[in-house]
């Protein structure tokens, strides 16, 4: 039947998608809470907030969640709709490239490269 390689991937991806979704929802809720609590939110406060190491780490996890969630979703879409192997691989390279780019960029945004 087809070319299915037996692996744990199906299960792991299923779990990652759900865990990352839960984490993203919690993170967004937390950020929104901060925004609503601080009536006069300004750049200073935001900068202070994001200079805290725990916030930076949690934000980094948020980025990783988005990117892994996105990758799994995009991979599934491609394996549903793109039948041509060359086009599909090309698409994977492009998406993976983008994801890596976002990863590096977000690290730079969070920690800054002096």
């Amino acid at each position, binding site marked *: *039947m087809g070319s*299915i390689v037996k692996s744990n991937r*199906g*299960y792991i991806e*299923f*779990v990652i998608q759900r865990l990352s979704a839960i984490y993203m929802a919690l993170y967004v809720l937390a950020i929104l809470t901060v925004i609503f609590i601080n009536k006069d939110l300004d750049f200073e406060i935001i900068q202070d907030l994001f200079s805290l190491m725990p916030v930076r780490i949690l934000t980094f996890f948020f980025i990783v969640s988005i990117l892994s969630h996105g990758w799994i979703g995009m991979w599934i879409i491609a*394996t*549903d*709709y793109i039948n041509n192997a060359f086009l599909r691989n090309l698409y994977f390279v492009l998406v993976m490239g983008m994801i890596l780019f976002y990863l590096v960029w977000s690290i730079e945004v969070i920690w800054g490269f002096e």
Partner: protein
Amino acid sequence: MAKVNKLEFSIYRYNPDDDKSVYMQDYTLEFDIEQNLMLLGALERIKDELDPTLSFRRSCREGVCGSDAMNINGKNGLACITPISSLPRKIAIRPLPGLPVVRDLVVDLEIFYKQYARVKPYLINRQPTPKKERLQSPEDRKKLNGHYECILCGACTTACPSFWWNPDKFVGPAGLLQANRFIVDSRDDAELERLQDLQDPFSVFRCRTIMNCVEVCPKKLNPTKAINNIKKEMLKIK
């Protein structure tokens, strides 16, 4: 006097033997509305009275053999238990979607049957065979309800987009319903093996829970629930 009514049919036609293309053919059938006519009865009459070349499968004509699943006004169903009275006066009939058409309303179900066979749809029990029956409590037996009644008509699987895109890799609702039937059978001792066999990104996890299968099942079964149970059992064994 019998009350007569007219039905207009538009039926998908294709015969690789002499047709160059696929087309919809129109038929008009008069029938007595007092009669409790099912769609299959109407198709039989079209074949007998109007066009002997129209091809479709049928057998039990009471909804248990699963031969005459087709796409009726856009929705998959069994012709033999679809009353004409439940349909509009214009009826469009096409073969089940997502499978190669052999001729007219007859599709090639090979891949559907292969996916069924793939889930090892038979009891595996490695204990010594007892002299009498293996005991099963009524509660354990009840777990098989909603599974064993499947008639393999293919209405659910061919209504599933995930199956359309990956018919060779995604087992599809009908096959997975049977996979779960043996997973939940208290007499079966190969649950772990069954779950491992389905462990990949396609076989089970392509189900996106859109529940087309539940909507079309002529036996009112719920494959989505069964698929979710398989996923749940997979989480348990980790």
